[in-house]
Structures are given as structure tokens and as C-alpha cells.
């Protein structure tokens, strides 16, 4: 048996193969290494598409800028409008970079054979999801950074000062983003085409934004609307973030008159579990017509 060859010129010189080709092939690279490589690829690919950067990524920041400048002092919110809208828009931004980004891009990768191509390589399937996790984490941190930075630098927003508040932000961030990501992956399987995916993703997301207390205070919403929205994660993410950002007395403006952080944790945790189950049940590397 010949020694393992690492001769890179093999391709151009055409040296003969060893008698047992398995002998010189080691194990394929590990999940973490391939996953991180995919993450880096995902980030570079995302940044290449300026439309997605402008419209998906910057939308919450644009809205914050408009609300902070136009609405300030227009209504009696009991606080500057930048402070009032900041937690809700962070929740919206997190759902956008997780649910919307994954829901539309995975549907497109599936429709155009990108997923099938991957399945034909030794890439470990879990590495694909590690890559998506890296992408969403990168975008989510960027989203929070952009909104906080803009609110603080341009509009003098008052940011939380206690460790408890930041801890709340951290766990709402993690549970909310994970739950919305899994939901996005599951939704990508619902749509047959990329165009259908953008409808299946964007329309429900838009409805949720209006019914989950992002633009309209929850207390102003009819009960049935609130009940419907509370089945989805966005309402709970916004509520958890308000608990961290708003002064204590604002809890009176919540439907129950309290922040109910335990309910926020339960609801978001439940969405992580439900999302995982849905993803495992629905995820396909091929389109329906590929069989």
C-alpha cells in the first residue's frame, strides 16, 4: 500500500491512483469546522446582496428614525417616543433577521437546487444548520447593535442600567431568536417557490407586527387580536424587552398590569420546542418535484 499522498500537483501531473483509494482518504472534516466555514460563507453571501441589507436588515432602524423624529411629543406616551418604540423594534428586528431571512433564503436555496447540491457532498447536514445559526447570530447582534447605537447616539434614548434588565434582554434575545429561526426554517418548507415563500413569510410577519404591540400599544388592541397574537413569539419578545427597557410603572400599560416575565419565558421556550419539532418534521433537501 502506498503512503498517503498530499501532492497537490497530482491533478495536473496525472499520477496514478493507489490501489485502494480509501487508504489515503481520512475522515471528512468535522461538523464544527464545516459549520463555521458555512457560517462565514453565509455572512459573505448575505452582505453581497445589498437589497437584503437595506430592506431586511435596516428596516427596523429606518422605522425607529422616523418614529423618533416624527412622533416625538405627538401622543402622550409618558416617555420620549424613541424610548417607547425601541424595545418593540428590537423584537421586530430579531424576528426579521431570523424568521424572515431564513424563511425566504432557505426556500430559494431549495427551489434552485442549492440544498440538493449540498446533499450530494459529504457536508454533514448539521453543519448547514450551524452555518445558519452563525448567520442569524451575526445578524441579530448587528440588529441590536444598530438599533441601540442609533437610539442612543442620534436620539438620546435611555438604555437599561441594571444587570437584571440586561440579563432579561439576553435571554429574550436567545429564546426569541432561536424560536423565530426554527419557525422560519419550518415555514420555508411550506412554500413551493421562492415567490410564494416571500408571501408566506412577509404577510404573516407584517400582521404580527401590527398585532403584537410593535406599532400599536397592546392595551389598545381588542382581546381577540391579542389572544391570536399571543400564540406567536413576537408579542412575547416585545413584552420581555419592554420589561427590560421601560420604567417599572409602565407595567400598568400591559394587558395584565404586570410584565409577566415567567409567561414570556414559557411562551418563547415553547416556541423553541414547537419550532424544532416542526423543522424536524418538515425539512427537505429536495423540492416536491424532485421526489
Amino acid at each position: 500500500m502506498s503512503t498517503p499522498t498530499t501532492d497537490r500537483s497530482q491533478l495536473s501531473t496525472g499520477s496514478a491512483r493507489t490501489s485502494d483509494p480509501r487508504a489515503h482518504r481520512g475522515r471528512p472534516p468535522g461538523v464544527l469546522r464545516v459549520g463555521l466555514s458555512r457560517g462565514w460563507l453565509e455572512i459573505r453571501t448575505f452582505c453581497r446582496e445589498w437589497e437584503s441589507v437595506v430592506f431586511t436588515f435596516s428596516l427596523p432602524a429606518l422605522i425607529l428614525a422616523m418614529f423618533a423624529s416624527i412622533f416625538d411629543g405627538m401622543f402622550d406616551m409618558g416617555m420620549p417616543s424613541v424610548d417607547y418604540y425601541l424595545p418593540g423594534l428590537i423584537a421586530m428586528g430579531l424576528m426579521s433577521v431570523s424568521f424572515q431571512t431564513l424563511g425566504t433564503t432557505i426556500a430559494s436555496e431549495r427551489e434552485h437546487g442549492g440544498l440538493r447540491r449540498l446533499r450530494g457532498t459529504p457536508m454533514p447536514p448539521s453543519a448547514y444548520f450551524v452555518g445558519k445559526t452563525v448567520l442569524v447570530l451575526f445578524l441579530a447582534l448587528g440588529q441590536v447593535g444598530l438599533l441601540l447605537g442609533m437610539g442612543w447616539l442620534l436620539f438620546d434614548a435611555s438604555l437599561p442600567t441594571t444587570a437584571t434588565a440586561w440579563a432579561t434582554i439576553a435571554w429574550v434575545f436567545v429564546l426569541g431568536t432561536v424560536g423565530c429561526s426554527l419557525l422560519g426554517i419550518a415555514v420555508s418548507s411550506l412554500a413551493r417557490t421562492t415567490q410564494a415563500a416571500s408571501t408566506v413569510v412577509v404577510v404573516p410577519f407584517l400582521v404580527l407586527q401590527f398585532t403584537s404591540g410593535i406599532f400599536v400599544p397592546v392595551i389598545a388592541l381588542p382581546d381577540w387580536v391579542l389572544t391570536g397574537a399571543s400564540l406567536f413569539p413576537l408579542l412575547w419578545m416585545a413584552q420581555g424587552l419592554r420589561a427590560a427597557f421601560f420604567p417599572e410603572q409602565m407595567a400598568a400599560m400591559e394587558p395584565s398590569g404586570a410584565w409577566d416575565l415567567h409567561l414570556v419565558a414559557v411562551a418563547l421556550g415553547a416556541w423553541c420546542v414547537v419550532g424544532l419539532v416542526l423543522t424536524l418534521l418538515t425539512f427537505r433537501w429536495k423540492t416536491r418535484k424532485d421526489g
Partner: protein
Amino acid sequence: MSETVIEAEGLKKKYGDTEAVAGIDLSIARGEIFSFLGPNGAGKSTTVEILEGFRNRDGGSARVLGEDPGRAGREWRSRVGIVWQQETMVPKLAVRDVVRHFAGYYPLPHDPDAVIELVGLGHKAEDLAESLSGGQRRRLDVALGIVGQPELLFLDEPTTGFDPRARREFWGLIRDLAARGTTIVLTTHYLEEAEELADRVCVIARGRVRAVDTPAALGGRASAQATVGWLEDGERREVLTDEPTRVVSELAGRFTGEVPELSVHRPTLEEIYLGMVKDTDEAEEAAA
């Protein structure tokens, strides 16, 4: 080098009531270029997808590189390369970055730059994969199929959209890979491509293997009668013969000087193939 790389017996696959693959036996040796020919819907894509581990079979056995493709894992995948039929999405990055990234999936990849050079995209390495022309995209697909240094390469309609010169260059590349011991399974609609490249061609029609042979001998082509034709008394004459040389020399004696419009024609691979497909259709219809 007669090691068997692909061995299949009685492969079957049904879609609803249609038997797409109705019992296919195959044996493909290491280093061979093996080509599937057949009309659309004949079952060749399904057969290839079963061998690639992309489709479950309903019956029969299959061993590809010593394993069952339906159950094979990542190590098996790292020994197999696939060039897909349709234009398949690639990441929106420069050609070099895409090939480098895919090389990272394999335990012992080729040097990505050498692969890019080999498929003739050296001058495009810095360009976005999306900006490539149709033929260049196919070359990138081929680069991604071979970057893992596969022992077995599946090529599905690889030269669709190539101009004649690009096709010739591509054929050279495939021959090089085969000469190095890569087994190549080629599905194509271009008969001249199969004739040019394949060691053996396999005609599949209506879910069954109709013939397997070298392109030169397929369907008795090597021993088939030749048609000698000429013009005599203002009429086209034709003779079907086992001895075209004798016929021609007789003609040469009968005519003074050139025999008008003399031609000797042996059946082309295309004629043999079309005849086979037609016979299959007629037999199946008569049976039905």
C-alpha cells in the same frame, strides 16, 4: 483494473402505477466511462439517482463503491462527485471562493486553483459565479463535482449549452479524469458525445436495459450491413451488403472514371439507437 465500482441487479422503481425502472442490471468497472442513453422518461435519470443515493429503490440490489447507496454515509459521499443536470444554485461569491469552500467539505480535495484552471475558468476565478455564461456555469458545476477528488463521477447532461469547441475541450477533461482511474457515469442526449467518450453505452427504454456494448458494436453495428449508393441512368441506386469493398470495386469496373455520387454508409450510433427505441416502443404497444 477490472474492479467493479457499480453493481446493480433487478433495480425497480415505481411512481404511482408507472414502472419507471422495471428491473435493471448493471456492472461498471473502475476507470470506465459508462454512458446512459435513452429517451426522456425512459428511467435513466431515476436509475442514476438511485445509484447516487438520491432516490430509494422499490426493489433489487445496488452496490456502489462497495456500499448500498441508499444507506451510505459521509465517507462514501466524499468518494463520489455529482454534476447535476439543471443549473444548480451556487453561492453568490467569486468562483475561487466557491470552489475553495466546497473543497473544505472533503477529506482529500484537489487544490481548488488547479481545478479552476483545469475546467478552463482560470481567467474567471475572481468573477462572481453568478456573472458566468451558461457554458462557464457548467464548468463551475464540473469543478465542484471533481474538487473532492472523486473515485466515481456522475455527469448528467454535462455539455448542454456548450459551443462545439468548449465541448471538445470538456471531452478531453473527462478522458483525463478517466485515465487517472476515475469511473465516469455519463448521461447525455448527444449521441456523438457518447460515441466520443464512452467505453460502453447502455440504452435504456421503458425502464429496461435494451443493450449494453461499446459504441462501435452497439446493436450489431460493427457487423451491420453497409449501404452502397450511386447514381445510374439518372436514378439513385442502393445496395445493402456485407461486402461493400467488393461492390465498390465492381462498380468501378462498370463505370469509366468516377462512379457518380458514390457513397458507402454504415449505420451511425444515432440510427442504431433510434431503431432500438422504436422497436421497444412497438413491442410494448403490441404487448399492451
